């Protein structure tokens, strides 16, 4: 029987994520992807939907009582769920392409 340390696996994943993130930042690719994501989310109506949802929360709680933390807590799961699969796929593909180009050079 073989077992590997789950914690170690997690650490390695985190390290990998940090490395990829650094590469993306240094090359400027991260900003480009961010801009692309923003455009796609606007195009598909995601932005309008979330904005509407925020307005409803603000109305419900009253402008005086609502905090940014409340909004973030309520909006985050919904925002994640509403991102269309196609947008996720496109971004993933772009990141893959970027990484394979990085490896080649």
């Amino acid at each position, binding site marked *: 029987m073989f077992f590997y340390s789950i914690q170690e696996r997690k650490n390695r994943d985190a390290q990998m994520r*940090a490395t990829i*993130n650094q590469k993306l930042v*240094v*090359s*400027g690719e991260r900003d480009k992807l961010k801009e692309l994501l923003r*455009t796609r989310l606007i195009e598909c109506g995601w*932005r309008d939907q979330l*904005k509407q949802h925020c307005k409803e929360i603000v109305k419900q709680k009253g402008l005086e009582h609502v905090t940014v933390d409340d909004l973030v807590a309520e909006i985050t799961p919904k925002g994640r769920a509403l991102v269309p699969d196609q947008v996720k796929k496109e971004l993933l593909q772009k990141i893959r392409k970027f990484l394979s180009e990085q490896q080649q050079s």
Partner: protein
Amino acid sequence: MNTKCCPHLSVFKATKGLEPFRIIHTYFISCTSREARKRKAKSCVCHTCRQARPRLHSCLSCVYFGCYGLKHIQEHAKSKMHNLAIDLTYGTILCFACGDYVYDTEIEHIAEAQQKIAEQWMGVTNSFSAWEPTDKEVELLQQNPKRRRLTANSTIGLRGLINLGNTCFMNCIVQALTHTPFLRDYFLSDQHNCQMRKDSEQCLVCEMSRLFQEFYSGMRTPHTPYRLLHLVWTHARHLAGYEQQDAHEFLIATLDVLHQHCKGSNGLSNSNPHHCNCIIDQIFTGGLQSDVTCQQCNNVSTTIDPFWDISLDLGPTEAETDFPNGIDKFEEPTSLTNCLKRFTRPEYLGSSAKIKCSICQSYQESTKQLTMKKLPLVACFHLKRFEHSTGYHKKISTYVSFPEELDMTPFMSSSRNHNNGYSEQVIREAASCLSSDYKYSLYAVVNHRGTADSGHYTSFVRQHKDYWFRCEDHLVIRAKLEEVLRSEGSVATGIKLAVHKVKQMCSNNNNMIFL
């Protein structure tokens, strides 16, 4: 947005100025050099947990970086009494004393300017920015408290048009234009600044503005567009009384008059017709690249011309057989993609149409290929169903299928094969359809029923995201997407105005926008 600064930020600004903000913004938010990005990549981690977690903030007083999720920035603020922090993703300022993000005009100006520079660096043009009402607009909104919210099943924006006697050719185009998202955004936000002040009654752009008001007023009775027709006819005299009254010609004439009447809104348009940035050109103008290759020396000469629409040939092609390399003869196209393939294939110009080659210094046989250099925001395709020659008018009624989403990647100049000699169709198929940079989505179709001499125009328009309506003069009837895509299926057909959205939305964040 509340741009009144919080007292804590005011005090900070008064004592330390704007420099701390500017420095943090340039170094860690909108980086414009590889050096800066390197620094950012290395140092953007929480100083407490050493991780690059989301919602990282920087203390404005001591440039401590702390994450928000694990409350490291909060703890720092509390223990050091440093109340102000910048969100390192968006550049907004969080005041812990107020317990909220705070906004300040001067700071926003700096952030905006920095963002602009960073965008230029990235090569991003026309990035979306949310609508911020000006003081004047805020005042107007306060004076007019009535709001109209559009729900998904709202029929606002749909209106029939009275037929003024064979004017269905105009009605179908008006329906397509009024459902063009970018035009709607432009007109409903009242952006036309009339250039014909003394004579604004004669301005077609002003008339379009009124037309949009009519369409989106909520009125349900059919509208009578006689002023529009009158103005187009006055300014495009070649159309008046033209017996064929062709929807496509009407569209082009209308766009042309609109573009003429916009002129003067910028200095460029008068001096250089190809660089007009009027709303019509911003939306409809694309660039068509033409590459002529000398068969003798393979020298390629390239020109780029602006276009508002693409006219596509139907029917089988002749004259293909004498191509030296024996290109496939084109069958009658039965899909929009086929038509576009045919449009962008290299064409042998023949021995009777020699072109002077600048390298050979003599007239040579050549091939010519058209590709899309620049795509417009709205792509308008016209199927040439009518053949008019002296004495006879003929209509080609072949069914041509078209998709709801069109990928233009294979027809781009960048997809052109740069090998010399066009031995085969050089258009590369889109390798991957995932990227939607060149994707278009259908929003209007114009159909013609009948013969070349007499017939009737109708149109389909898309409302909101996926509701389709069939417009036939004063009638507006809900339709299904299948019906739209099947249109032209029978013998009945006409011009197709396949048009599109996508690239970027120039619109604001108001409730009017449903794409």
